[in-house]
């Protein structure tokens, strides 16, 4: 498939936004359980939520560049019964509104507990909104991933590993950004977020490499024989029906050499997984506040390559019909 930059930005940016929000909320829940020092509502949670919102809005903006008719995008909310794309179109704005509300409530400091559960757990409005937003964040991960995992014709995507990768990579990059954000605003949570970022990055490494191995050994169940309905082991296309290009030759091929694809694979494995983990560990050892920021930037760069590869790797059965340009 052709990797489209709009979709690369959309999926990576909202993944970071979702992950960052979940990181902030995890921090809040931990501090409630007195496992972490409580943070300032305004400077940490509110600003953090707005940063997450910024990433989500960036992703949303990128998605409009993918559409031929962005002014009709609202129509895409209508087929949620059958289309994962439609479900994503619904969940994304809901999640964004919840994050905005979460940030706003923290911003105005409306954090006096409304009631207390079993005498020990004070529940304020932010905790409730944050909980609903967290559910929406997970729902959004599933919707986004299922857009790809649900296309049963693309074997490379049609697996639970796609969902696992979107979820784990989103969490990893979000917690990485949370660590960077804490380091930037001198909040003593760098270690906490950093450890979780490393944990998610390493689990994501396992699922991503598993999917790479799976796709490498994948045996496609489609072939030219059933594509044109001729039982013969030696069929060659002599003409695809036109001598120039078509939508079919553009949209479904990555048009890069095998070498480029391979290089990008090694590069993304390095930049998404290895380098950020090393950077976070060294930042812990060196007590550096810059390294977590560098770690996030490197990982994000790697993520764009990872998404590029995700598309490039996918082999669509329609390609069987477009093998010979003449």
């Amino acid at each position, binding site marked *: 498939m052709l990797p489209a930059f709009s979709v690369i930005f959309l999926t990576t940016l909202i993944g970071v936004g979702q992950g960052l929000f979940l990181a902030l909320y995890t921090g809040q829940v931990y501090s409630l359980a007195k496992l972490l020092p409580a943070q300032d509502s305004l400077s940490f949670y509110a600003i953090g939520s707005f940063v997450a919102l910024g990433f989500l809005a960036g992703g949303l903006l990128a998605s409009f560049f993918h*559409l*031929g*008719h962005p002014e009709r995008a609202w129509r895409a909310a209508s087929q949620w019964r059958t289309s*994962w794309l439609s479900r994503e179109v619904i969940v994304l704005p809901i999640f964004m509104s919840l994050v905005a509300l979460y940030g706003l409530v923290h911003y105005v400091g409306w954090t006096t507990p409304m009631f207390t559960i079993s005498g020990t757990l004070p529940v304020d409005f932010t905790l409730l909104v944050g909980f609903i937003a967290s559910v929406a964040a997970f729902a959004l991960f599933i919707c986004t991933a299922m857009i790809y995992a649900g296309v049963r014709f693309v074997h490379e995507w049609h697996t639970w590993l796609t969902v696992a990768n979107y979820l784990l990579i989103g969490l990893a990059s979000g917690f990485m950004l949370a660590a960077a954000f804490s380091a930037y605003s001198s909040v003593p949570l760098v270690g906490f977020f950093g450890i979780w970022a490393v944990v998610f990055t390493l689990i994501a490494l396992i699922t991503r490499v598993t999917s790479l191995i799976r796709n490498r050994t994948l045996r496609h169940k489609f072939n030219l024989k059933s594509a044109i309905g001729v039982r*013969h082991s030696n*069929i060659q296309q002599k003409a695809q029906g036109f001598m120039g290009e*078509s939508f*079919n030759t553009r949209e479904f091929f990555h048009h890069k050499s095998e070498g480029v694809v391979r290089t990008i694979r090694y590069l993304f494995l390095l930049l998404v997984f290895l380098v950020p983990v090393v950077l976070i560990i060294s930042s812990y050892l060196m007590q550096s506040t810059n390294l977590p920021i560098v770690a996030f930037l490197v990982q994000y760069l790697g993520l764009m390559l990872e998404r590029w590869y995700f598309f490039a790797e996918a082999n669509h059965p329609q390609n069987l019909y477009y093998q010979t340009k003449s």
Partner: protein
Amino acid sequence: MTQLALVIDLNVCVGCHACVTSCKEWNTSGWAGPMPDQRPYDADPCGVFFNRVQTYEIGEYPNTETLHFPKSCLHCEDPPCVPVCPTGASYKREDNGVVLVDYDKCIGCKYCSWACPYGAREFDEKNKVMKKCTLCIDRITDMSLPESERKPACVLACPTSARIFGDVHDPDSEASRAIREQGGYQLQPEWGTEPANHYLPRRRTLMHIHRDELIRADNPLKKEEVELPSDQETIDDIAW
């Protein structure tokens, strides 16, 4: 329920592309149009077509066979491209089973094209919507046309009558009979998309001629000086 479809006879298709050009001619100015081209007269031309004729070579020289293979939307009975459309722009007509795109609703997300294993949908770069074969919906439903012309443009244009148009749910239609009697098959049946369009396979025309059929033993002028194969009576004896 009616399911209109094409049955394409690969045994008689000569790969002349008449269906391709007549399709473009009719549809670019009809309901489904326009079908714009980019750089039509330059290097690397590109454009929207609903129908393409491809050519395959089967076997190894000198034992090869050339197959011309027209390909368009197959109007699947269980079209995977329809449920994935987020806007409802892609739909299957209840009354005749034709799969269509509502160009006023389509947002151009291209998701449907990913969900078609046959590569039957082509994006219109100029109007930014998805296009595909409509079975000439504006012709086949136009009651002001005489019945003989209420057929897709490609069917009318085909010089070898390789394209049969009809209701594949009606067992007595010409299309159904052709599928049944001449081994009609579907493309990539393994997906369970149930394409409504069918293809008739290449058929080898074999004729067995026996030696005695080459010689007219009953030639009244006896030009061939045939010796009768035996002294006994033969059915050819009648001539004597």
